[in-house]
């Protein structure tokens, strides 16, 4: 790569990172000094040593997050940062030889086709409204295995092409084998069409991006030829359940200080979150081909959380990777319930723990290793907190059983036991302050910018929302701690989690579902509460916030899963987000398209009775047209015939999804199935008239 001119000097980078590291380490050191001075009074016991080690790791983690937020707060107080990609002057010295063509790529895997299509339609329409839609092409990169979903995706894709007269500009392909999951899917795209585009914008199935944002991202890439990747900060939007609305509020209200804080110290060496980011294809292809790691999962095999590794590879190759804090119009969706959130965590957890191996990869800079460690800590912190609580309880019990000795040897006067209450309480409050102060920083910014806080329902409602959100997060934190600890343990025990599709639909949890998911949490809460109350009553009082979350997990999870409660909270002006206060055009388009796509689907089904897709001559023909032209071996042909007989004789329930996929992957068998679906003669066949 020829090195382009850089606006950012090495001095600025070094100064900022040094400041950040000093603040983090100093804070951790001071907290540790206090706790150590308390422990040292009577010599350190093995339990205290363990507590010290655990606290060191945890306080470093908390301090990192706190100082990132605080630096972001400071930056925002000063009106932003001139060293952000959106505010830096262009570094391009000569005009590009030809206009850039950008691919919007959406890798999907068994996602709800209606939501996926509605989102893509909204993005496409928003893009056309900018007047620069011609610079973009859209590629739906499907890894979908479910046969129903597959054919539905194709039908929706073609309908999009028809509705927007975008034949030859919106594309769809379904991979025959989903090797290496999402990273393999993108790699396949680069292999086949990489040279056609200068940039790709990677979207998730739930991504929504405004046309203006996409255009701005391309412009920024064009202005900065040394930049390989720009990550837009996606905000949650379009939620109904109370759980996701609280998270949506938190991300919107507190997100800014964290994003600006990240930009403050990471600058041109930022990270990649896997979606809603623009990537320069050439360096990506050159440096980011990911190998399969030797050994078995969780540390071997395919790289799950490929984004962090790809960003590291780009940085190490000398390319800049930025986060763009002032880019708006980038959205994503959140899991609707606490249980779905935990399920998503389980997938991410394995990917992040795998990064522990990457820490030991040769050739990476200290910063890249730090990012890998931060990824590991985002899940490893949970079992560490759990261990910390257990050991603290044990230590409190030991202390309560120790009889004070007032007279030693020949001393005439009693030696009163020293109290460490001040030191320990200070440590506790410092830790709590670091956890909660970022919320206060955001509130202060809101109070200063009263126009901005209007979009959160005004000062009173925003403050109340912060208060309620803090209570909610305090109550759910112990549940997530137990979940994540379990995940970490399971993964370290080499129990792979697979890569199940994410549930993004609103659905209220039933009592049975909640009991199944949280029964053990409630039990842990009750047992831990009883033991601590029985043996260490003083510790029990401190433990109440943690115990409350566990004991109340069932009603809390059920209540927060409710869309009705979420909508009611919105009517009361609680947990409002700017996108709810004034709906962005692209979100309006999403909602309109959800109605259009659902209605079109219903209309099609109304004409088809209970059977569809294979029975629908249009959808079946489209599927056939898109199937690859492969000769079928004789043996496979016999297997397919056997499957058809099995289907006819035993019904579809006896076939695996892979069998069903095989059937509709062969043109000859597909046509046979289509005819069979119409010659049924039963009331379930497409009805006449």
């Amino acid at each position: 790569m020829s090195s382009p001119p850089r606006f950012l000097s090495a001095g600025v980078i070094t100064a900022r990172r040094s400041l950040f590291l000093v603040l983090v380490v100093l804070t951790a050191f001071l907290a540790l000094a206090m706790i150590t001075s308390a422990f040292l009074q009577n010599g350190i016991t093995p339990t205290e040593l363990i507590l010290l080690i655990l606290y060191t790791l945890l306080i470093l983690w908390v301090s990192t997050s706190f100082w990132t937020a605080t630096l972001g707060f400071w930056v925002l107080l000063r009106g932003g940062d001139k060293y952000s990609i959106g505010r830096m002057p262009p570094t391009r010295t000569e005009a590009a030889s030809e206009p850039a063509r950008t691919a919007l790529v959406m890798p999907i895997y068994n996602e709800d086709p209606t939501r996926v299509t509605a989102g893509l339609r909204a993005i496409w329409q928003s893009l056309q409204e900018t007047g620069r839609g011609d610079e973009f092409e859209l590629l739906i990169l499907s890894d979908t295995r479910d046969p129903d979903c597959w054919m539905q995706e194709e039908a929706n894709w073609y309908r999009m092409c028809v509705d927007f007269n975008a034949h030859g500009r919106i594309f769809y392909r379904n991979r025959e084998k989903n090797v290496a999951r999402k990273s393999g899917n993108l790699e396949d795209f680069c292999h086949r069409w990489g040279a056609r585009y200068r940039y790709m914008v990677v979207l998730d199935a739930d991504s929504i991006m405004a046309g203006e944002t996409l255009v701005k991202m391309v412009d920024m890439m064009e202005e900065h030829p040394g930049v390989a990747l720009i990550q837009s900060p996606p905000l949650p939007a379009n939620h109904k359940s109370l759980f996701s609305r609280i998270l949506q509020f938190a991300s919107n209200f507190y997100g800014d200080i964290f994003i600006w804080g990240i930009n403050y110290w990471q600058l041109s060496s930022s990270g990649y979150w896997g979606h809603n980011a623009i990537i320069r294809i050439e360096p990506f292809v050159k440096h980011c081909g990911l190998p399969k790691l030797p050994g078995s999962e969780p540390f071997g095999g395919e790289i799950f959380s490929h984004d962090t590794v790809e960003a590291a590879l780009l940085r190490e190759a000398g390319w800049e990777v930025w986060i763009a804090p002032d880019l708006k119009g980038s959205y994503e969706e959140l899991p609707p319930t606490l249980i779905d959130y935990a399920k998503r965590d389980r997938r991410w957890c394995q990917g992040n723990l795998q990064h522990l191996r990457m820490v030991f990869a040769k050739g990476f800079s200290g910063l890249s290793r730090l990012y890998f460690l931060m990824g590991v800590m985002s899940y490893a912190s949970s079992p560490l907190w759990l261990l910390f609580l257990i050991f603290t309880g044990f230590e409190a019990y030991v202390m309560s059983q120790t009889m004070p000795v007032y007279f030693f040897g020949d001393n005439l006067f009693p030696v009163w036991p020293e109290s460490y209450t001040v030191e320990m309480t200070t440590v506790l409050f410092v830790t709590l302050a670091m956890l909660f102060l970022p919320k206060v920083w955001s509130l202060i910014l809101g109070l200063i910018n009263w126009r901005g806080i209007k979009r959160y329902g005004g000062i009173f409602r925003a403050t109340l929302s912060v208060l309620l959100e803090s209570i909610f997060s305090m109550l759910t934190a112990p549940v997530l701690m137990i979940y994540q600890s379990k995940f970490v343990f399971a993964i370290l025990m080499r129990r792979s989690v697979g890569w199940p599709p994410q549930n993004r639909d609103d659905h209220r949890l039933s009592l049975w579902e909640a009991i199944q998911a949280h029964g053990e949490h409630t039990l842990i809460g009750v047992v831990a509460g009883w033991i601590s109350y029985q043996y260490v009553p003083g510790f029990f009082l401190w433990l109440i916030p943690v115990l409350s979350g566990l004991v109340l997990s069932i009603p809390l999870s059920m209540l927060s899963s409710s869309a009705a409660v979420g909508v009611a909270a919105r009517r009361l002006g609680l947990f409002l987000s700017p996108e709810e206060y004034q709906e962005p055009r692209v979100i309006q388009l999403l909602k309109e398209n959800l109605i259009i796509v659902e209605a079109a689907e219903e209309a099609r089904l109304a004409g088809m009775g209970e059977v569809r897709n294979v029975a629908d001559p249009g959808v079946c023909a489209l599927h056939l047209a898109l199937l690859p032209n492969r000769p079928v071996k004789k043996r496979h042909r016999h297997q397919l015939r056997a499957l058809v007989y099995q289907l006819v004789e035993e019904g579809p329930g006896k076939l695996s999804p892979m069998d069903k996929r095989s059937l509709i992957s062969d043109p000859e068998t597909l046509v046979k199935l289509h005819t069979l679906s119409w010659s049924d003669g039963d009331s379930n066949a497409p009805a006449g008239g």
Partner: protein
Amino acid sequence: MTMMAEASPGMSEISQPSGMNEAELREQIGHYWKMLGLTNEDLIASLTGDCLSRARRLAGRASQAELLRRALEEAQRRFDHALASAIGMPPSNDPHPLAAARAALLLTPDLSADCLFAHDDSTRELKDKLLACLPRSTPEESPLPMTPVSFRFWLFKSTDH
């Protein structure tokens, strides 16, 4: 393909003998023609009759289910033949191009298949419209090879590349 999903009984009942009478047979084939984009009732009735006659000749004394299947296959054959003639597609063993044209005709609103059997100027108009909206699922390939990088680790086994 809901018919193959657990919840839908469609395919599971394929093997059951069809208890259709003549009128129901005609109605089912007529409905199929409508799903193929035909709207002219007279044309549908005439084509249905033709398909049934040919199916009877081929199937002999077979069951009603077999008769229906043969008639449907005949409908598909006639439709594809008319479509191929309309767009000037040479005969081929590759089912993909014709399937693409069929998909475009059936999934594009405002396109009627009646004119496939009209043999007049409307066929030419249809041809132009169809060619413009043939499904183009992928862009022209423009490869960029992506070679996996190699990782060398402390404590862990390195990759082979």
